[in-house]
């Protein structure tokens, strides 16, 4: 949601202006190169979209262009994060938000699976401990689960 939409002032935007800043196209080329690299060498690439000089409309144009693919996930850790695969397999969009829904980071990951979706080894170790603990200590009401 664009904060500007709530300002009750009419901003004239001609059709010509919308998305004509030409900043999306070069980025799409970069994505294509990254995909090729992933395909041939298995090397993942992350593009930080906040470092790209976007004009008004550019970002929306890019996201619309990439579209939505089969997978989308929501992560709840220090606020919400939205992660979805675009209709181009291997191109993932990762948006991190804070607890007050401010965007913290916005990235494109060209990878098989964004690292943040995978369970982290430390967390796995911790959860194993927790699970064992739970199994070893009998429940007060006698049920296992």
């Amino acid at each position: 949601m664009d904060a500007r939409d709530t300002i009750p002032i009419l901003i004239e935007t001609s059709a010509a202006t919308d998305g004509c800043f030409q900043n999306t196209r070069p980025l799409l080329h970069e994505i294509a190169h990254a995909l090729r690299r992933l395909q041939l060498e298995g090397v993942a690439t992350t593009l930080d979209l906040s470092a790209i000089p976007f004009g008004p409309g550019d970002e929306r144009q890019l996201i619309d262009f990439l579209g939505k693919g089969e997978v989308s996930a929501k992560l709840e850790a220090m606020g919400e994060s939205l992660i979805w695969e675009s209709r181009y397999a291997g191109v993932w969009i990762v948006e991190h938000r804070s607890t007050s829904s401010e965007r913290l980071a916005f990235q494109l990951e060209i990878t098989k699976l964004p690292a943040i979706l995978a369970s982290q080894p430390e967390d796995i170790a911790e959860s194993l401990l927790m699970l064992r603990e739970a199994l070893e200590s009998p429940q007060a009401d006698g049920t296992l689960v």
Partner: protein
Amino acid sequence: MVDKKIKTLGDALRRNGVSRRGFLKFCTATASMMALPPAMVPALAASLDKARRPSVIWLSFQECTGCTESLTRSHSPTLENLIFDHISLDYHHTLQAASGHAAEAAREEAMRANEGNYLVVVDGAIPLGNPGYSTIAGFSNLQILEETAAGAAAVIAVGSCAAFGGLPKADPNPTGAVSVRDIVTDKPVVNVSGCPPIPVVITGVLAHFLTFGTLPELDEYGRPKAFFGTSIHDRCYRRPFYDKGLFANTFDDEGARKGWCLYKLGCKGPMTYNACATVKWNEGTSWPVESGHGCLGCSQPDFWDAGGFYNALSIPVGDISRTTSYAAAAGLGVAAVAAGINHKTKVAARKRHDRVTIDDLEKIS
């Protein structure tokens, strides 16, 4: 306030129940904020996990508090909190609860306890014209800065006043204002210029110090290259229009409405190095050029004296048409004299003319 027993940032986060995923997300956000390449995230995570808690002393001199305002209104509150919660801001005029002798005592205590390790953040220029122009608790800005900087690990000059003298130093500089770098020469000084500076740049520098215990790489003006490495012009989304020769001529013409380049309206983007074009302002909402106004060049030294804000960068600073008219007038005067001399020389030559006859064709030998 954070529990003083917690030594590292990693501890603090875990104590707050943050998962590894959460930490990774935090690192990603921090890297993005510090304008570090995403590939740096794992290294950042390792460092941040072990990051220690520094003491920070914030000094305000000839300033307008705009820099502090900018910082406290910074977006990403969670992230800010995390960083700020983790530093120990032991002295800050505007923000601290203590006042008077108690406040000064806090500063002295922090300096003593963290000798050689604390950070000094300065906003505002230092007047050298007369120490009385700006004092705190009876001490001149110069005295306080010299004294505080002596035991610091590094100094961060926040805002163009501290970094370059800023508005106080603008011609004719009535207070004899100078920048932090003019005073502090034996300590690393990081300039985070801008009027005001971009808030995440301030936190970015703090995060860098926090994470790596070092200062980021600086440009020739002592500014972190990560943020000041490229000019506004080079990162401006309106750059294609500049290249095509499409310019707004007024603030309400078709070009302005279509978002064409603002060069002719005085945009100083080509000479200005800052991160506005990508980081943007007000929670990433927009930035001056996107709002339809050219860059003022506020992160460059002496931008106040760099000619009219609405004059194109190629226009000289002075009143060129006045210079031209005066020069033309002077030129006419001098030229009239030069012309008179030439005329006289020629008339004299004519007068001296000896009629050539066939008898004097030969040379005297």
